[in-house]
C-alpha cells in the first residue's frame, strides 16, 4: 500500500471517479479504434463481382458484407478510390480545396475497413474540421427530447412548445407505457406547432404502433431503426440489413422521414464484437445505413457512450464515427443525448467535438425538461443546463441549434400549448386536462409538480383513439373549433408536408413558413474561411441576446445623486506633521462614484480609514488625486503630500495601497487588491497600518482573505468602475484638499 495522500483522496471522491476506466481488451471488442484484429482494407473484383472484401472471401461474406457489395459499393468508383493511399484520403478530408461532393463520391467506392482506417489517421482537430466540411445540410440544428414521468399531456405539450420556441427542429418523445403512444404523439404535435410551425415530431415506440401513428398523421419522423456491425448482433437484434431497409421503405411509403440508429460499443455490449474495434464495426454500420437507402443516421455511440469512454481514445472514436457517417453523405444526429459522464468537465469536453464543427443535429435529444423526467434514460444536457449551452454558443460564436428565449415568452407559449392540448382532449372526448394541470405545466419545474391523472382512463382512451384512427387532421379541426386557428393551420401544414414528401430527402428540416431545407436545397458548400454557414448577422444577434445579459452602458452608473460626501477645500500642498497620513482618493471617489464594488458607501469607508489612522496615533488628512486613476500613482502622489511621507491611496472600487514617498510608484508597502472582500473593519485596519508605517512602528500586514472567483465574478464591474474613474481623471490637474461633508453626528 502506498502512503495515503489527502490530495489523492480528494480526487477519488470526485464525480468523475464513479466511472470505470479500463485497459483495452480487443478480444471482447473493448478497443476504440485501430484494433489489432481489424482487417486490412481490400477489395478484389473479378468480372464485375466482388470476390473478396476486407479480409473475407465472398463465400464467407456475412449478411452485412453481402448487403454492402449489393447495395453499398459503386465498383466503378471503388477501382479509383480503393487505390488511393490511406494518407492521401485522410489529407483530402481536411483539404479545403477538395470539396465535399468529391469526398462523398469517393466514399461510394470505399470499404468499411478503408473508411475506418482513414478516419483513424485524423487527430481530434482534423476530425472536427472534416466533420464541419462533410456535414450534409448548410446550417446545423438540434433535436429535443420531450418526456415526463407522469406522461402528462399538458406538460408534454408545454415542453414541446418551449422546445420549438427555442429553435429545436425536431422533437422526440417516447412512452413509459406503450399504449400511451397516441396521446403522447398528440400532445407533442399540438405543443410543437404551438411553439413554432414546421417542427417535426416522433414518438419512439414499437414499429407497428409507430407506423400507425405516422399513417394517422400524428408524427412525421422515426429514428428507431437500429443496425449493428456484426451479423450475430444484427440477428440478436431480430433484424437483417434487408428487413431494416424494407422497414425504411415502408415508413417512407407512408411519408415518414426515417433516420437509422447505430453507434460504437453496441456490438461489444451485446457480446459479439468478434474481436474487432468499435470504430471498424461502426464503419460497417454506417455503410449498411447508406446502402439501405436511409437519408441519415443517429450515431455517436448513443446509449453506449459511457462504455466507449471507458477506453483510451473513446471520445476521439465517437467523433470519428460521426465523420464516417457524414462522409457517407448521411444526415447525422450526433449523439450527446445519453449521459456520457458524471463529470461536467468531461462530458462537455466530449461535446465540443460535435458542438464546434456543427452537425445536422448536434444532439440526438437535448432534454428540454429536467433529466429526472427524461424517460429515454437520457439527459446528458437538460433544462437546468440551458443557460450554459447558450453561453457556450455565445462564447464560441457557434450555432448549436438552441435559441435564448425569455421567461415571459416561455411561460406564454407553455400556457398556450397546455390550453391547446386541453381543448383538443375535450373536443376528442379524451380524459379531461384540468386547469390545475395547465397551470402546473406552465410554471412548474417537472412532473413532480403536476397533478396526478387517472392513468387507467388515459390508457383506455389512448386505445380507443388508435382504434378510431384519430388523425392529425382531427386534431387540427378540434383546435380550429376552439379558437386555436393558427395552431390548426400549422398542423394542416404538417399534413401538407406528408403529401409533398420533400422532407424525405437528406437532412431535411422545415422552417416556420413551411419551406423544407435539406442537403438538396440547402447543402453545405463549406470550402474554407469565408464560405459555408457562419454564425453572423441577425442569427448571431439572436444567439448572443441571452435574457440575463446586462446592458454594459447601464452598469456602474449607480450613485452620483444624494448628499455630498466630501467638500473640496482648494489645492492640496505638502504637509509637515510627521504623524500625518494622507488618505488619497481617486478622481471619482465620493463624487461621481459613491460606493465600492462591494457596495460600501464611500463616506463610511473614509470614516473607517480615518478612525483607523487616529486609533493608531496618526493624523488623517483627506486629499483627492485628480491627474490619474491608477491606485499606485494615487497613493504615491498622496505620499508626496504627506508630512510623514506615508499615504493610503484608494480607488473608487475600493482597491487600496499604502505607499511611501521614497519608493518607486509601482512598489508599495501594502497592497489591498481584493476590494470585493473588504468590510469597513478591513478599511479601519488599513488605516491603523498606514499610521503604523508613518510612526515607524513594526506593522504586521492586514489579514486578507483570498477569493479566487472574485475576478471572474467582478471583472466586468471592475472594468466599468475603473473606466469611469479614468474618465474623471484630468491630466495635469492638481490635488485637492478634502473635508468630510457629513455631519459629525453621523460619524
Amino acid at each position, binding site marked *: 500500500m502506498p502512503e495515503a495522500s489527502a490530495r489523492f483522496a480528494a480526487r477519488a471522491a470526485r464525480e468523475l471517479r464513479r466511472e470505470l476506466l479500463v485497459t483495452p481488451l480487443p478480444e471482447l471488442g473493448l478497443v476504440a479504434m485501430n484494433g489489432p484484429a481489424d482487417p486490412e482494407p481490400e477489395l478484389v473484383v473479378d468480372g464485375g463481382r466482388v470476390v473478396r472484401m476486407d479480409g473475407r472471401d465472398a463465400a464467407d461474406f456475412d*449478411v452485412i458484407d*453481402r*448487403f454492402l457489395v*449489393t*447495395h453499398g459499393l*459503386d465498383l466503378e468508383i471503388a477501382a479509383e478510390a480503393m487505390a488511393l493511399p490511406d494518407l492521401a484520403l485522410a489529407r483530402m478530408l481536411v483539404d479545403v480545396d477538395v470539396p465535399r*461532393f468529391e469526398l*462523398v*463520391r469517393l466514399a461510394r467506392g470505399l470499404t468499411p475497413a478503408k473508411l475506418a482506417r482513414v478516419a483513424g489517421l485524423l487527430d481530434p482537430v482534423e476530425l472536427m474540421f472534416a466533420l464541419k466540411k462533410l456535414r450534409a445540410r448548410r446550417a446545423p440544428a438540434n433535436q429535443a427530447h420531450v418526456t415526463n414521468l407522469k406522461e402528462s399531456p399538458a406538460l408534454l405539450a408545454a415542453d414541446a412548445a418551449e422546445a420549438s420556441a427555442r429553435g429545436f427542429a425536431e422533437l422526440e418523445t417516447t412512452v413509459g407505457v406503450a399504449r400511451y403512444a397516441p396521446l403522447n404523439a398528440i400532445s407533442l404535435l399540438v405543443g410543437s406547432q404551438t411553439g413554432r410551425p414546421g417542427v417535426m415530431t416522433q414518438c419512439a415506440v414499437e*414499429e*407497428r404502433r409507430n*407506423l*400507425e401513428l405516422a*399513417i394517422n*398523421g400524428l408524427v412525421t419522423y422515426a429514428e428507431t431503426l437500429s443496425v449493428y456491425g456484426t*451479423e450475430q448482433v444484427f*440477428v440478436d437484434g431480430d*433484424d*437483417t440489413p*434487408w*428487413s431494416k*431497409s*424494407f*422497414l*425504411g*421503405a*415502408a*415508413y*417512407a*411509403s*407512408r*411519408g415518414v422521414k426515417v433516420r437509422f440508429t447505430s453507434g460504437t460499443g453496441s456490438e461489444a455490449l451485446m457480446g459479439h464484437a468478434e474481436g474487432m474495434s468499435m470504430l471498424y464495426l461502426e464503419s460497417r454500420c454506417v455503410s449498411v445505413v447508406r446502402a*439501405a*437507402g436511409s*437519408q441519415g443516421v443517429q450515431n455517436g455511440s448513443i446509449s453506449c457512450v459511457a462504455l466507449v469512454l471507458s477506453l483510451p481514445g473513446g471520445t476521439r472514436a465517437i467523433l470519428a464515427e460521426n465523420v464516417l457517417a457524414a462522409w457517407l*453523405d448521411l444526415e447525422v444526429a450526433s449523439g450527446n443525448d445519453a449521459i456520457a459522464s458524471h463529470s461536467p468537465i468531461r462530458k462537455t469536453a466530449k461535446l465540443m467535438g460535435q458542438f464546434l464543427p456543427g452537425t445536422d443535429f448536434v444532439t440526438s435529444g437535448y432534454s428540454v425538461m429536467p433529466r429526472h423526467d427524461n424517460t429515454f434514460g437520457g439527459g446528458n444536457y437538460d433544462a437546468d443546463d440551458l443557460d450554459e449551452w447558450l453561453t457556450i454558443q455565445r462564447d464560441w460564436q457557434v450555432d448549436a441549434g438552441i435559441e435564448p428565449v425569455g421567461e415571459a415568452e416561455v411561460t406564454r407559449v407553455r400556457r398556450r400549448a397546455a390550453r391547446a392540448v386541453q381543448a383538443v382532449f375535450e373536443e376528442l372526448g379524451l380524459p379531461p386536462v384540468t386547469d390545475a394541470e395547465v397551470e402546473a405545466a406552465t410554471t412548474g419545474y417537472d412532473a413532480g409538480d403536476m397533478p396526478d391523472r387517472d392513468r387507467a382512463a388515459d390508457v383506455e382512451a389512448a386505445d380507443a383513439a388508435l382504434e378510431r*384512427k384519430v*388523425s392529425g*387532421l382531427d386534431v387540427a*379541426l378540434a383546435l*380550429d373549433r376552439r379558437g386555436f386557428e393558427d395552431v*390548426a*393551420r400549422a398542423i*394542416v401544414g404538417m*399534413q*401538407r*408536408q*406528408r*403529401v*409533398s*414528401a*420533400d422532407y*424525405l*430527402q*437528406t437532412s431535411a428540416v422545415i422552417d416556420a413558413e*413551411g*419551406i*423544407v431545407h*435539406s442537403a*438538396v436545397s440547402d447543402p453545405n458548400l463549406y470550402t474554407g474561411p469565408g464560405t459555408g454557414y457562419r454564425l453572423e448577422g441577425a442569427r448571431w444577434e439572436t444567439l448572443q441576446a441571452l435574457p440575463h445579459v446586462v446592458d454594459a452602458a447601464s452598469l456602474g452608473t449607480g450613485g452620483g445623486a444624494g448628499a455630498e460626501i466630501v467638500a473640496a477645500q482648494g489645492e492640496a500642498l505638502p504637509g509637515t506633521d510627521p504623524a500625518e497620513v494622507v488618505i488619497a482618493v481617486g478622481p471619482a471617489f465620493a463624487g461621481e462614484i459613491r460606493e465600492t464594488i462591494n457596495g460600501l458607501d464611500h463616506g463610511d469607508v473614509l470614516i473607517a480609514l480615518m478612525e483607523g489612522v487616529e486609533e493608531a496615533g496618526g493624523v488623517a488628512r483627506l486629499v483627492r488625486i485628480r491627474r490619474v486613476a491608477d491606485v499606485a500613482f494615487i497613493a504615491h502622489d498622496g505620499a508626496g503630500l504627506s508630512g510623514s511621507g506615508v499615504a493610503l491611496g484608494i480607488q473608487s472600487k475600493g482597491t487600496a495601497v499604502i505607499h511611501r514617498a521614497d519608493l518607486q510608484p509601482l512598489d508599495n508597502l501594502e497592497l489591498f487588491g481584493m476590494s470585493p472582500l473588504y468590510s469597513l473593519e478591513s478599511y479601519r485596519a488599513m488605516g491603523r497600518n498606514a499610521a503604523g508605517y508613518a510612526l515607524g512602528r513594526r506593522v504586521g500586514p492586514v489579514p486578507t482573505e483570498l477569493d479566487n472567483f472574485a475576478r471572474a465574478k467582478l471583472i466586468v464591474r471592475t472594468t466599468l468602475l475603473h473606466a469611469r474613474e479614468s474618465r474623471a481623471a484630468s491630466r495635469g490637474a492638481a490635488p485637492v484638499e478634502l473635508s468630510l461633508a457629513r455631519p459629525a453626528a453621523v460619524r
Partner: protein
Amino acid sequence: MGFDPTIDYPLGSRRPDLVETPSGLALDDVTLETARAGTLVAADIRATAATLVRQAAVARAAGRPALADNLERAAELTCVPDDRLLEIYTALRPGRSTAVALEAWARRLDGWEAPLTAAFVREAAAAYGERGLVGA
C-alpha cells in the same frame, strides 16, 4: 411544364402543381379550409407513388442512388395495405420465413406491381439461405 429533378425541389414550394393527394386533390388544396369543408379527409393525406418517384429522381440527381432506390421501393409500397407492410417486415426478420414463404411474398409484391421490392425480397431470401437465416 415538365419535371426537372435538379431544380424543382422542394416540390411543395417550387412545384406544388405537380403534387396531389391519392384522390387527386391538388397540394395547394391541402388547407384548413378544405378540411373544414370536408373535402380534405385524413385518409387522403399521404404521398402518392408518383410523388415518391419524383423524390427518388431528386435523390438520384443529387448523387444519392441508394436513397433513390429506397424511395422507389417506397413508391411501390404505397399500394401495399398497411397490415401487409408489417407482415412483410416480420417475414424478413431473421429465422422467420422459409425460402418458399419469402418467394410467396415476392410473388404477391409482383402482383402489387412492386417489382423492385419483390427483387429485394428474393435477394434477401438468397442471402438468408446462405447464412442459415431461413426459418424451418
